[in-house]
């Protein structure tokens, strides 16, 4: 199985990196760009075939290590 985990900053947490990217894109002439936020994407190969178990595992991985829930939130996507 393959899984993809997104880790992004919680709303309200300032994202200097995203802001800088937005600024740079505007500077390059992409005037349509409004707010920009940057996060992480983590692609994992998982052995086993039980989707529910995998989801539970992924949630535990996020809580324990992948995300810092003081500032970040996460989404999990299983790709079969």
């Amino acid at each position, binding site marked *: 199985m393959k899984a993809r985990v997104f880790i992004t900053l919680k709303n309200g947490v300032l994202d200097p*990196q995203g802001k800088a*990217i937005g600024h740079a894109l505007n500077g390059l002439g992409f005037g349509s760009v409004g707010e920009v936020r940057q996060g992480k994407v983590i692609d994992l190969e998982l052995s086993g075939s039980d989707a529910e178990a995998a989801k539970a595992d992924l949630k535990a991985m996020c809580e324990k290590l992948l995300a810092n829930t003081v500032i970040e939130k996460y989404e999990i996507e299983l790709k079969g």
Partner: protein
Amino acid sequence: MTKITPALVKEHGLSDAEYKKILGLMGREPSFVELGIFSVMWSEHCSYKSTRFHLKKLPTKAPWVIQGPGENAGVIDIGDGDACIFKMESHNHPSFIEPYQGAATGVGGIMRDVFTMGARPIAMMNALRFGEPSHPKTRHLVNGVVHGIGGYGNCMGVPTVGGEVNFHRSYNGNILVNAMCVGLARQDKIFLSAAKGAGNPVVYIGSKTGRDGIHGATMASAEFDDASEEKRPTVQVGDPFTEKLLLEACLELMATDAIIAIQDMGAAGLTSSSAEMGDKGGSGIELDLDHVPQREANMTAYEMMLSESQERMLAVLKPGREAQAEAIFKKWELDFAVIGITTDTSRLVVKHKGEVVADMPITALSDEAPVYERPYTERAPVTGAPAYDKSKPVLASLKTILASPDMASRRWVWEQYDHTVMADTVQVPGGDAAVVRVHGTNKALAITTDVSPRYCRPDPFEGGKQAVAEAWRNLTAVGALPLAVTDNLNYGNPQKPEIMWEIVAGIDGIGAACRALDFPVIGGNCSLYNETNGEGILPTPAIGAVGLMQDVSKMATVAFKRAGDVVIVIGETRGHLGQSIYLREIEGREEGASPPVDLAVERKNGDFVRGLIEAGRVDTVHDCSDGGLLVAIAEMALPRGIGASVGLAGLPDAIPFWFGEDQARYVIATPFAEAEKIVAEARAAGITVAELGKTGGDLVTLDDKNSIAVAELKAGFEGWFPKFMAGEEIPVTN
């Protein structure tokens, strides 16, 4: 089996004559793997085929030299059983293609060269050349390179303590990234790469092998054209975390007596490390690639032999010590594998999946590698003193110069490098030389990198001399005794006779200066073919150098420290404006003769100044080079905002006096009583000396007439770099 066609041979960068020689050495057609091995080992990068003949002319010996050129890095004796190990190396082409990773892996590579010899790295330097600031790529390259150097060096926990940054249009399509690493070891714990003896296990340590940078070594030896940006091979990505583990694990293994030989896998990875170790040890090496830790599926023998994956080492152990070594590497969570054995055949034999894919005499890769005495066309050096506009106001020019790209503060750069980690940096970037204490002692090493490329095109010989003299002067200016040099010779295409002349004359100039100053060359690196679309870079023989201070408390710095000190210039000022910063920045011309260096005077003046520092009589010294005398004085005023009032009665021509770049000069500042004595002693010793004025106030005042605020000079000096980078894109980050 891949058929060896003339096209394939050409793709491997081998000439027809070279291929004929290979057929003769092998007595048969080489296999594809063997062709790949020849191509990297006979590349300019690994074989030094264009420069080897001339490099032999460099002085490499002195009583304090423990190891000269020929090993991964040079070694000098710094007393008390301590050794200093250092080397400088280029990563020019990779950094142009991918500035962050190119510079980062350059840093990682040179660190491995130093710790593979048993040293703990204690300081890093970098000498950088970029295109003109207005070139559309320059800012992106500066940003990426600086982040890459910091990203790797900071993570390693080794302070990056200095370097150089220049801008010139000749580097528009071909930047230079030269990194230097300085390490410390005990003299009885130095490790070499000679794989002596048969039947010893060959072990692989570090990261897994992937398809990184295959043909990187051959790429580094080929000219660029605009299309090569599309044809780029897989770029190596640096992994400083793994390198830090590798460093600690290697030092731990080195504390045992399990190692016979060890060598980093740099350019041409497994191929060059195994061939070089076998060659130096006079033995053969047999590798079984099935045991090589691999990152990707289905790697071929060709790919594994040519991969430039980073953070890997090859070692030969005493038989029976495998388990002891493995335990150390497992503790540090690194890959470890026995991948071969030494033999008495003097052949490199490579097996893969039960088949012999390469079997060749090692001497064919080393001794038999081509050496060329390439033809060169001598060119008379540019001569003459350029005209200049006498009406230009001196202080306004000073302000302009201090805020110009080559002269402005590099704080923007070095604040991104951790320069105080290891808690031994006693002189931070911004002075004449960095000074790093030998941990737990009162001794210190002074470190610098120097070259003035603008002097090297008009006069390659004097330019080479000057680079060495300036390095020697910078070490002297902090109070260190200069000990040895590592060079990094960056030039254009050696197959062009006019470029080959620049190389030959440059090496001759370096050799002359090193001989006269007792300053042996203990290592180096050549980077040739630095040109784009047929246009070569300015000849840039960068000199990295190290000196020793016995008592770090005597160290001198550039900053004026007290009001009322007498400002003295040691050395003769004739007003040499040729190729000066003044002429370029104020008059917009690069003209005239490069400043000549009188090596005897250089030595005499330097020894005199060092004597004053060592005796604790002077604590404020600045070498006088780029920009000339008034620029040196201003640079001494800037750090603490202490001004000076200077002048010289009866000056016929102010501009050449204040901005000429005559060599062998130092500015010192010291209280009156001492100053009187120093001037008298200098005169008695036949050294030209002049009192220029006094420190104090917050202005730089000329001839008691015109003044400029130090704060105003400082604003321009500190402002240029951040302003230039402000149009900055987003820093490359993880």
